[in-house]
């Protein structure tokens, strides 16, 4: 029997799914680009009419901005001030993420515990912290900190720990002269430790006896660190080498910078496309590419070319530096790299040049310092001195606020992740004889981690973005510093653009790291 095709004619264009799909893609792309161009030109047109000129010269101009805390409290330029703000924000974000993860995991596990008291304590913590707005909590910690006793003349002296309304003085370990050469010893030690740990694991697999790979690895690192503590001056020969690299970079023709970046962009786009084609290749032959696949290939190729073109355009921008020179971005980049190597070379010299490090923190590669209360200035006001770690009240309030807040959410995520592992996994593990700690480590946590990871990444993003609430307690993060600059110069648009670019970069970096682990942990299913 033959099947009768009722209508057999060429499909008209407006009914052809492929054509419609492609048209839609292109229209959307053109629409988005057109929207942005219109918005930008309207905005700049309005700015011009209202005599506001936006520019970037404030980045290199000297500012009178005074910053309450950070790597440089009297920055000589707008760019430096922004950098201080960025470092302050990153300090809160990175240490906050680190501590919130540990604290949240512990509380989450405590909430799963069959220990009644532990369980209820964790529940109370979570319910209190996550149900009060973060801003209120930050104000609470700030009020608590400011309510501490003020420093008085009687307080002058050296302490292990000192809490006051001016902040907390902590004893801390700092890098000192010889830190970088010593770090090289430690890094070599870590590489060696990985090898040792691997050998111990192989031993365990061969004999079945516990290999204690972790302990042996730790021991190796400690040995290298101890040797390096005394031996670091022998790396002084690195100084001329690094100096030579620094000089060499300065002599590279600036045009090579955009050329290199463009080449990297084009090559990585090409590699991506090649990998993409490879991924569509099955043992049976080349798989059929869908329209979406082709669109992705074209988009990847185009973006490679756009980045390459942008590298030349941006690399050619001339910028006036603080010193009064006019350099292109490419030249500036080379100079930055050259300076970095020059600075590294200096730190390899046995008589390290960093004045502050030498005057205050001499000794080995690391130095242990205790906080000190001194009388400063003509008014002889009691203040914390240069030594030790001083946590200011704004930092304390913001850090404690975001960390405890995020930890309560992470605790719930961890609890949910562990509960989401089927009960049968625990039973099967018990049935084959694993002890509790064994099956938690080998069976339950690896599976829970897969479930936890994506929402955990969201919490990291929230924490990083919530640091902008530091403005409320006058913490000198990038938002507060930017606000000061904005008020002084009136350059609202560029400052907002820098804020956006910074938070976008930070968030995307966090996402990329989390996604990388997420892909690595995916379960193989049919």
């Amino acid at each position: 029997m033959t099947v009768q095709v009722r209508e057999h004619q060429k499909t008209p264009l407006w009914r052809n799914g492929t054509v419609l799909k492609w048209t839609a893609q292109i229209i959307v792309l053109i629409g988005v680009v057109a929207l942005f161009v219109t918005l930008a030109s309207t905005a700049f047109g309005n700015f011009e009419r209202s005599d506001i000129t936006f520019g970037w010269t404030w980045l290199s101009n000297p500012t009178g901005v005074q910053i309450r805390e950070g790597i440089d409290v009297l920055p000589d330029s707008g760019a430096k001030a922004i950098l201080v703000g960025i470092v302050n924000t990153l300090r809160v974000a990175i240490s906050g993420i680190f501590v919130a993860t540990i604290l949240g995991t512990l509380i989450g596990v405590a909430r799963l515990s069959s220990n009644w008291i532990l369980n209820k304590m964790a529940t109370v913590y979570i319910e209190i912290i996550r149900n009060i707005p973060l801003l209120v909590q930050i104000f609470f910690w700030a009020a608590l900190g400011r309510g501490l006793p003020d420093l008085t003349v009687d307080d002058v002296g050296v302490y292990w720990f000192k809490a006051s309304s001016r902040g907390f003085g902590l004893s801390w370990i700092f890098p000192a002269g010889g830190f970088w050469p010593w770090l090289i010893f430690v890094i070599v030690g870590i590489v060696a430790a990985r090898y040792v740990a691997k050998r111990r694991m192989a031993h365990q697999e061969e004999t079945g006896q516990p290999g204690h790979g972790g302990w042996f690895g730790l021991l190796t690192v400690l040995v290298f660190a101890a040797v390096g503590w005394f031996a670091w001056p022998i790396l002084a020969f690195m100084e001329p080498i690094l100096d030579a690299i620094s000089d060499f970079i300065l002599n590279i023709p600036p045009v090579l910078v955009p050329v290199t970046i463009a080449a990297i962009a084009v090559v990585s786009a090409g590699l991506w496309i090649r990998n993409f084609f490879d991924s569509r290749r099955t043992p049976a032959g080349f798989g059929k590419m869908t329209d979406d696949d082709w669109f992705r290939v074209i988009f990847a190729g185009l973006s490679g070319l756009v980045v390459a073109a942008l590298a030349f355009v941006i690399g050619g921008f001339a910028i006036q530096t603080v010193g009064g020179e006019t350099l292109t971005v490419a030249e500036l980049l080379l100079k930055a790299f050259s300076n970095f190597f020059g600075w590294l070379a200096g730190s390899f010299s046995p008589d390290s040049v960093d004045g502050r490090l030498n005057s205050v923190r001499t000794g080995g590669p690391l130095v242990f310092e205790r906080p000190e209360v001194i009388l400063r200035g003509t008014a002889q006001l009691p203040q914390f001195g240069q030594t030790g770690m001083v946590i200011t009240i704004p930092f304390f309030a913001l850090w404690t606020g975001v960390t405890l807040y995020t930890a309560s959410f992470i605790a719930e995520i961890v609890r949910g992740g562990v509960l989401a592992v089927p009960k049968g996994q625990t039973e099967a593990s018990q049935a084959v004889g694993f002890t509790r700690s064994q099956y938690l480590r080998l069976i339950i946590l690896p599976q829970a981690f897969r479930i936890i990871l994506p929402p955990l990444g969201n919490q990291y993003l929230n924490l990083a973005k919530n640091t902008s609430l530091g403005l409320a307690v006058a913490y000198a993060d990038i938002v507060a510093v930017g606000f000061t600059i904005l008020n002084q110069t009136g350059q609202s648009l560029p400052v907002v653009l820098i804020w956006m670019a910074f938070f976008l970069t930070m968030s995307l970096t966090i996402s990329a790291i989390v996604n990388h682990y997420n892909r690595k942990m995916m379960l193989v299913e049919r």
Partner: protein
Amino acid sequence: MTENEQASERVLGDPIVITDDVKKWFGDFQALSGVTATVREREVVVIIGPSGSGKSTYIRCINRLEAHQEGTIIVDGIELTNDIKNVEKVRSEVGMVFQQFNLFPHLTVLDNVTLAPQWVRKEPKAEAEEFGMGLLEQMGIPEQALKYPGQLSGGQQQRVAIARSLAMKPKIMLFDEPTSALDPEMIKEVLDVMKELALSGMTMMVVTHEMGFASQVADRVLFFDYGIIVEEGTPEHFFTNPQHDRTKLFLSQIL
């Protein structure tokens, strides 16, 4: 009885699992109301009964996945109490196969089989893998060794689960409805493996609804209802001449 010839060839040994007046409650629901039974070495005991009759709870008490509240359970000379060390010792000698397989989805088939021998029995990896591959061959799935459980069919997964238990070289195997989650065509491949295991002299306690398996392989059938053993006996007694009304009713409904 020709069907039961294979079973009768096995020579039963000393008692290895002894349960005496075992009672267990879940809240105010009494799951076990005094179960007394003894299983001897190399014996195959099939436990049947309606759902909710306590048969699963009973064999889960044997390796203390559930803790019984009254009575005594002695497995291979070790009494099961709150003593964690004793519980671990018993668990490393008693294998268990679950209705839902419960394979570890993040590990390959071979790792599923060899992980416990390496960590619990402290066997060298090479030795554990050799033994594990041998078991997978016995189960008829050596070519699946490097795949993940999610890539296998239900019948294959259950055979991996059996191999995982056998890798610990257990003295007793517990089966908790091993074929209830399988497609009909896969039930046979799992039952065949279990029959082979019974022939090799393994002590087995099997909760199942497969009456064919019970009549061919079992030395003894226990019929559970309301948390007690209502009737027990050889398969021929059980299927041809049941004494209790409850047993008769149950058999008439399922056969």
